[in-house]
């Protein structure tokens, strides 16, 4: 085994420090809830949590008091409604005050692009006519030196650590993703440290047999965690479906503070790790989410 393969507890313990700028990305797909839960369990504090869509995972982090500041572009429970934990933290300081820094999706995407390219900023055509730049002084405007046209700019985002879930990885952390990719690649290349979480550990030959699918090369990866169902209630295409029922249910669970805290007590603090989380959900429950079989055609890499 390579020295990179480790437990989630060790990866979070070693690579997520209080006060860090942390990214757990994944656009609906491959959101690593297992990492979020471990951060809550280890009671990390004062994090600057960045994500396009905070989703339930940052709702839980904020409700657990881990977050000092949220950097985002769309904060809701998709198709369902509000993120109540986050709103309580932002609006009422419960359990602790969370500051916000807000962009649009394109703005966040461009911040990760700049970060991954190691440029100080990125220019893009958006934000004009919107009130967003008035509320976020990090959104600025420049003139193109070639055409004289005006563009918005956003600063690079270079997280201290990005936690990137993939479907499969080898022990060096070469991670392969298929289906929705979000900004997983940019979030990884932008980060000072990368933790790859994989549903499945595969031999290096499996990666090398299909190199176009490798979004995350092991050379930027510090730690590899192998954790089946690490994304639940998010999903991993080809492994398990999005638990839409849970996303709908979350509105009821999180509506008031007591309900959300009871959930954290029962499903996060009350469990040592993801294995116990899987067991608590039960085989029958997981079976319902199991992916059906839709293999891709294969291609010939021969020459």
């Amino acid at each position: 085994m390579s020295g990179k393969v480790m437990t989630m507890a060790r990866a979070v313990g070693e690579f997520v420090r209080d006060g860090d700028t942390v990214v757990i990305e994944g656009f609906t797909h491959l959101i690593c809830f297992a990492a979020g839960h471990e951060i809550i369990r280890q009671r990390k504090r004062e994090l600057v949590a960045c994500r396009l869509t905070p989703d339930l995972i940052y709702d839980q982090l904020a409700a657990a008091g881990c977050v000092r500041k949220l950097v985002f572009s769309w904060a809701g429970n998709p198709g369902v409604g509000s993120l109540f934990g986050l709103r309580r933290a932002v609006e009422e300081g419960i359990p602790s005050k969370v500051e916000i820094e807000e962009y649009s999706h394109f703005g966040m995407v461009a911040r990760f692009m700049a970060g991954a390219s190691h440029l100080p900023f990125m220019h893009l055509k958006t934000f004009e006519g919107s009130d967003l730049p008035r509320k976020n002084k990090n959104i600025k405007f420049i003139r193109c030196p070639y055409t004289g046209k005006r563009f918005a700019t956003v600063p690079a985002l270079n997280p201290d650590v990005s936690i990137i879930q993939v479907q499969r990885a080898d022990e060096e952390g070469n991670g392969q993703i298929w289906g929705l990719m979000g900004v997983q690649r940019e979030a990884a290349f932008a980060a000072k440290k990368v933790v790859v979480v994989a549903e499945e550990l595969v031999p290096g030959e499996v990666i090398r047999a299909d190199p176009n699918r490798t979004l995350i090369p092991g050379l930027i990866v510090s730690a590899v965690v192998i954790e089946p169902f690490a994304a639940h209630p998010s999903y991993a295409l080809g492994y398990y479906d999005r638990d839409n029922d849970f996303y709908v249910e979350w509105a009821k669970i999180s509506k008031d503070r007591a309900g959300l805290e009871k959930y954290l007590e029962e499903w996060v603090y009350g469990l040592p790790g993801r294995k116990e989380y899987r067991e608590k959900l039960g085989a029958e429950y997981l079976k319902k989410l199991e992916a059906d079989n839709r293999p891709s055609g294969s291609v010939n890499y021969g020459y």
Partner: protein
Amino acid sequence: MADYTPSEMMVARAARELNNGEVVFVGIGLPNVACNLARRLHAPGLVLIYESGAVGCVPDRLPLSIGDPCLATDSISVCSMVEVFNYYLQGGLIDVGFLGGAQVDRFGNINSTVIGDYARPKVRLPGSGGACEIAIHAKKIIMVLKQSPKSFPEKIDFITSPGFIDEVNSRRNFGFPGKGPSLIITDFGVYGFNKNTYEMILQEIYPGVTVKDVKANIGWNVKVGRPPKVTAPPTDEELRIIRQDLDPHRIHLR
């Protein structure tokens, strides 16, 4: 005539606006239902693009979110969000952008960020997502949202996504590639925009709705096109697809 809800009327009307072969940037909620309804009826060649990076989607269930797995499976292409925003949207490939929001003003500017003061919100909303750039780049914008004096106030609390911005159409001065709002579909009727004043103008009303109803449910003295056309009600076929196939659990059409 079949019984139907205002949401069903909105979805059916929005679907009719989409032409076969158009490239549509799809949002969550009602627009999602409308696009998938159009695809099942008159526009099988509609190219659905979701900001999650799925292109040419053929969802076999109604996606609860815009990142649902059914959008990737059997799509033409799945790309990263860097590509979808830079190459597809900023690249000028999007014909129609669908947007919703909590508030819209007479110039088609949209608020999906906050009700009340930004720092001390009465209601904090999700924010832009991709809406701000969709409003700027898509060749035309169709909005779908329910109408009340609150959702169509004299002045909105925050401009998340620019429409025409003001009576001189400032979007032109900014050099936006897209032409701006073309249609607003509410639960009372359908609005277009005056070509000189860039103001919303009532063009259609739904069966059973009067101009008086419309005026009682909007925050300013809205201009009325003469005479507003009465929209055809949802057909049995439209209702069957919506109810049986697209939203059987009434998640989107509450």
